[in-house]
Structure formats: structure tokens, C-alpha cells
């Protein structure tokens, strides 16, 4: 039986991990919309967003592992509904990383007088919204 002193920090850490996951996803979604929605998207803002994105996606992945790790060893099997949704979520994250590498590449090679293509940021926002929807369905069991 774990002591109260040990359980409380573990619960606090689990809560902190969930908040890091949520805030990092919100930063990716909000940042993408902030770049995409103005009449003339700013290249400076887009470059800042790319840095933010890569830091945030790293935090999303590491906090996501923490969230799943809390379920161990009882992580639902792939054959269950939750398991299939989780697999779909992981595949969607890999897709987001691949698409974002291309988006970052285009921004990195855009000259200082170049334009930002807002469609990449709308695509990113939509992708993250879909990921959030999957997470909500998973949380409801």
C-alpha cells in the first residue's frame, strides 16, 4: 500500500502531464490559426510558429507517453475500440509530423520577401482538431 505522501505527488505529476499535453496541443492549434487567419499571413510569425510547433509536438509526444504509461500494464489491446482509436491517433500524429516537416521546409526556404501559403496552416489546424476529436472520443470510453 503506497503512502499518502507518495500518492499525492504521483497524482499531481499525472495532472501536470495532462495539462502539458493539453496546452501544447492548444498552442499548435491556436498558433496555426494565428498564422492562417490574417488577411496577409506574416512570414515572421510563420517562422516563429515553426519553432513553437516543434517544441510543442515534442511535449505532446512525451506527455502522451506519460498519459498512456499511467494505464500500464492495462493498456487496452489493439482489438478493443479504444485500442483501434489509439492506433488511429498514433498514425495521425505521424502524419502530422510528416506534413509539418514539409510545411517547415517551405517556410525555411522562403525568402524574406516571400509569401506564406495559409493553406498549410489551415491544414495543420484541421489536423490537430481531428486529433483532439479522437482524444475526446477515447476519453469517453
Amino acid at each position, binding site marked *: 500500500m503506497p503512502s499518502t505522501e507518495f500518492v499525492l505527488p504521483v497524482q499531481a505529476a499525472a495532472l501536470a502531464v495532462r495539462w502539458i499535453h493539453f496546452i501544447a496541443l492548444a498552442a499548435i492549434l491556436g498558433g496555426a490559426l494565428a498564422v492562417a487567419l490574417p488577411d496577409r499571413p506574416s512570414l515572421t510569425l510563420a517562422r516563429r510558429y515553426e519553432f513553437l510547433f*516543434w*517544441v510543442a509536438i515534442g511535449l505532446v509526444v*512525451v506527455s502522451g*507517453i506519460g498519459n498512456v504509461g499511467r494505464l500500464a500494464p492495462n493498456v487496452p489491446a489493439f482489438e478493443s475500440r479504444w485500442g483501434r482509436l489509439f492506433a488511429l491517433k*498514433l498514425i495521425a500524429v505521424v502524419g502530422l509530423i510528416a506534413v509539418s*516537416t514539409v510545411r517547415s521546409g517551405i517556410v525555411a*526556404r522562403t525568402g524574406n520577401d516571400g509569401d506564406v501559403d495559409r493553406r498549410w496552416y489551415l491544414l495543420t489546424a484541421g489536423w490537430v482538431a481531428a486529433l483532439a476529436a479522437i482524444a475526446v472520443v477515447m476519453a469517453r470510453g
Partner: protein
Amino acid sequence: MADRLTVAGFATAHVTGLTVLVLLGFHLRSTLGGILEPIGTVTGVLLFGVLWGVAIVTHHYGFGASEPWSVDDRRTAIRLFGAGFAWGALTGAGTFWVLAILGLSGLLVADPSAIVDILSFPTLLIVLLGTALSLVIGGAVGLVAAAFDLGVGDVVDRIRASRSRK
């Protein structure tokens, strides 16, 4: 600016992509819970943090010679695969060494007399074998990452070319 973005982007894309694909592989075999349980959250975060940090350092120096997003003629497939293997191997070995130093330091702090065990032949053999294994695994992952980078570079080239034609 672009160079720093390249380092941050590719290092994080490689580390997060690899991590998620490994998780997916275990999950598809329904063995994820068994793998995560002995690792634990703190160790898992530490592992990921060390791998991410080492990858950023190796990418910083590695992509100086083979910038996948650059438009110059240095971005040839053979250079990219060579650099991918070399810097992937260094990332693997660097991660192993950082973790080994952290682990052995922890042992020494807990029990200074453990220095005798640490300097023993079996421990040194484990470090040697671990270094060799992490070099090979890192190099193999580096080749996969280089293939990914080459694909991304070509996609970026095509998109930019089609935009400039419009």
C-alpha cells in the same frame, strides 16, 4: 534562421516520429502495456529528453554538411545517406553514453564504494557492447531518417517549383 529551423524541425521530427512509430508497433501487437510498465513515466520522460537533446546537438553539426532543405548541389542522395548513417550512429551512441553516465553517477552518489564495481571488467564490457549496439541501431535509424529527409526535400522542391510557375 532557416538553419536553426532545419535543426529544430528535423531533429524533433526524427525523434518524435521514431518514438510514435515504435509505440504504434508495440500497440499493434498489444504489448504496449508490458513495455511501458517497467520503464515508468519518469524514466520514459528522461529517455525521451536525452534522446531529443542529443539529436538536436548531432543535427546541429550533421546538417552543416548535408542540408536537406537546401537548394544547392550538395543535397545528393549519397551525401544525405552517408551523413544520416554517421549522425544517426552518433545520436545512438551519444544517447547511450549520456544515460550510462547518468546511471553510473546515480550509483556513485548512492554508494561511493560502487566505483570498484563500475571499473570492473564486466561493467566496462557492457559499456563497450552497449556503445557498439547503439552505434549500429542509431546508424540504421539514421538511414531511415535520411530516406525520409530526401523525400521531404523532393516534395518541398516540387511544391516550390509549382508555386513559382503560377
